[in-house]
């Protein structure tokens, strides 16, 4: 089927089987290498994207879910001020995601901060409940997210 959607602020048109998973389309066809489709059960979180403003795990979505929609991946965030704030927050709180899960963690943090710039620890843990990589100290990660929210707030008030 023919699909068109906005991927990282650019219009994309592709021809893909309707049954294909969105994660495979992004990774294999559109060469979005921050997406790591690995569990295909929505469990590991390594295929996290922001679809139409909401956090989504692209391995459990068919490609047509993206039609006429807007997808933001890690690549689309890297040049943004939000990305700088997130990375600064993580660094300051010594949260060290491994290179495999860093992109998905950044996308998830972005979605948390979209909902609240001062999220609670419980909110953060609940959102990260959809990830499985054990590389990062959870408490440091939660503090890093809060710190990122602080930097974001400061920037917005400048």
């Amino acid at each position, binding site marked *: 089927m023919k699909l068109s959607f906005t991927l990282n602020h650019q219009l994309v048109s592709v021809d893909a089987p309707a049954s294909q998973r969105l994660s495979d389309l992004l*990774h294999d066809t559109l060469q979005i290498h921050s997406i790591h489709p690995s569990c295909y059960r929505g469990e590991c979180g390594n295929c996290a994207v922001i679809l139409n403003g909401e956090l989504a*795990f692209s391995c459990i979505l068919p490609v047509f879910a993206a039609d006429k929609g807007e997808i933001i991946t890690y690549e689309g965030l890297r040049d943004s001020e939000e990305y700088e704030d997130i990375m600064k927050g993580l660094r300051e709180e010594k949260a060290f995601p491994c290179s495999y899960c860093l992109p998905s963690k950044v996308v998830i943090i972005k979605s948390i901060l979209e909902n609240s710039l001062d999220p609670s620890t419980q909110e953060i843990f609940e959102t990260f*409940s959809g990830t499985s990589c054990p590389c990062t100290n959870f408490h440091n990660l939660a503090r890093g997210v809060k710190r990122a929210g602080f930097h974001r707030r400061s920037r917005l008030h400048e």
Partner: protein
Amino acid sequence: MEHELPFIDQLNSPEMLHVRILRSEIPRGRIESIIREGVPKKVIVAGAHEIPGANRIRILGDEMPLLSNGDIRYEGEPVLLIAAQEKELLDKAERQIRISYETDFSLLAFNPSSPEQVVDSQQLKVGNPNRNFGKESQIIEAEYRTSVETHISRAPLGAYTYLEKGRIVVHTPTHWPMHVRSAVSTVTGVEPSEVKVIQTNPSPAYGEKVLFPSILASMAALVTKLTGLPSRLLLSPYEVERLTTRKPPVEVKRTSILNNKGDLLAEKVHLRFDVGAYPFFTGELLTRALISTGSFYRIPHFSISAEAIRTSSPPMNLYRGLGVSQSMFSTEVHFSRLAEFSQLNPGDWKKQHAENRHIITGADLPTMPLSQLLDQVIEESDFYRKHSSYELIRKRRNSIKASRRSFRGIGIASGFTGNGFTEKPRGKHPWSIKAVLDRRDKLSIYCGTMTIPGAIKELWKRKAGEILSIPVESIQIAEGNTDLLPDSGPMMLAMPVSVYTTLVERCCNHIRKQRFHNPLPIEVVRTIPAPRKNVWDREKKQGTPFHAFSWGAVVTEVELDPLNLEPEIRGVWASFDCGQVYDTQYAVSIAEGSIYESLAWAMGEERVIPRYNPDYTIEERNPLQMRLPPVSINFQNTTRGIPGGINEIAESLVPAAFVTALSQAAGVYFDQIPLTARIIQSYLEEPA
């Protein structure tokens, strides 16, 4: 945070062949026939007969066939490789190829097993535990079990190969590039120098990146050799989870003999490891198991035997720690139980033994820090008070099932893990590290693996800078491939932080001596030495077996809800001495991750952080998942000694402390891992 290396699934080329493994559908038997009729012409099919070199993967003396040579020893054993440029063709070929088997229904079980299934065994004996200890002695028997544990690394596992000026180039996320080179050379029949291995990003690993990249690279390289085309083989999530590395199940039988005062006179232990269809590293696994089982306890008569049992399960391979956590689990739970039997507080009981400052192999360790570590966790957790009061409550109540109040328990565990192998490699290519100081006073350190964590690289630079009095900016860790880098052995058992750091220091010390006597550049290679017999006698299991030790003591407090039998961790207090720690915060981060993982293993949960499952409401999830238990971690002596690994010591002690605490809370002796609510229920239903 970010690694420069690409992941294996990012590498591809337009003409690349996708390689898939066709696996056996039966657990044991023989292949009767393989019918390839109807397979599309564009699909390449390769079996054992198409292998130009030797059909084997060998690692330190153990080997298995790359593709089945007719015998099937486990379900999922690779039989054929199929390759095509389009994945749809592979699906079609998979449907067309028919493999017939002659099934052998006599599966090799773990329990019971026959003597023929024992592929390796070792024994360690102190005194004579079989002597007659008199009528006054008391005998306590117990059995402990741990189940298989699959790793949770989701990073892609595979290999990408192509020809470059006649040479085979391999990209794979290996932790031992030189072994990949050797394996590819063996299978394809070309000289090792005709194979170049480039590492891709391995990311989180549990041991599966030591052997599997060699297997997958050999398979992809075989297709490249047969076709001349680039080939990529990626394992599916199912294959990674079920058919790569797993922690082997263990059964432990223990017999303790105590005198009428409760002093432990003798201890007999027998361990059995299910190593699956093809055993690897069993010598190292069993030696480490013996040492971890004996641990630091001072027992006049002690006998430990360990066996590796071949079964019809897929090979367990090399899970990190190599059997240490399972062995330590039985020892720590059992000795806490004996302390209780002797009317002693388990903390005091362990401290008494720790004051001896030696381990089961007879090594005297005057700087052994266990007493201080135990003191610290006992004080921080308020162990004595809590243990006494929970014990009092346990003895006063009738039955946990008749109660509506939650019950609490607290457990303690202590011990050590070893860094580096107990058996040093032999042969003409010893594992080594190279350092070169060039004419501009710039130092390059060459290590066989490029995937050394950043914190360890910083540690090397700082140490080298101090020794040679040069700024760290002048020091680089060389990058490259097997054409440039030495064979430093597998990156496991804390080799990078412990053994390699020592080799880097030795290289730099030698350069410092040579520096003003010889012209630059100066190149120094230092290899891992085999210890002298008076240091470590592996045959007799006497002496100091490890390059360095990592020590630890852990207390865990548990609350058990009598209604749903879900244990909740109220707190974990841990104190470690892993020698010099370069970045304490980073070390705490690693230790905490290991503690959560080991709790997840002990509680039968896949993860501590909950899985997203739309069918569950938040309230239905495990309490631990929703509320991370508070963990307090301390590192002692962070500025002295050889740096040691953290992961293994943290994950080895926590399960024992958890099970001991849960036993106190429930008033039932638990003797297995994992412990889910359902298993706890079955223990409570057993007649007393």
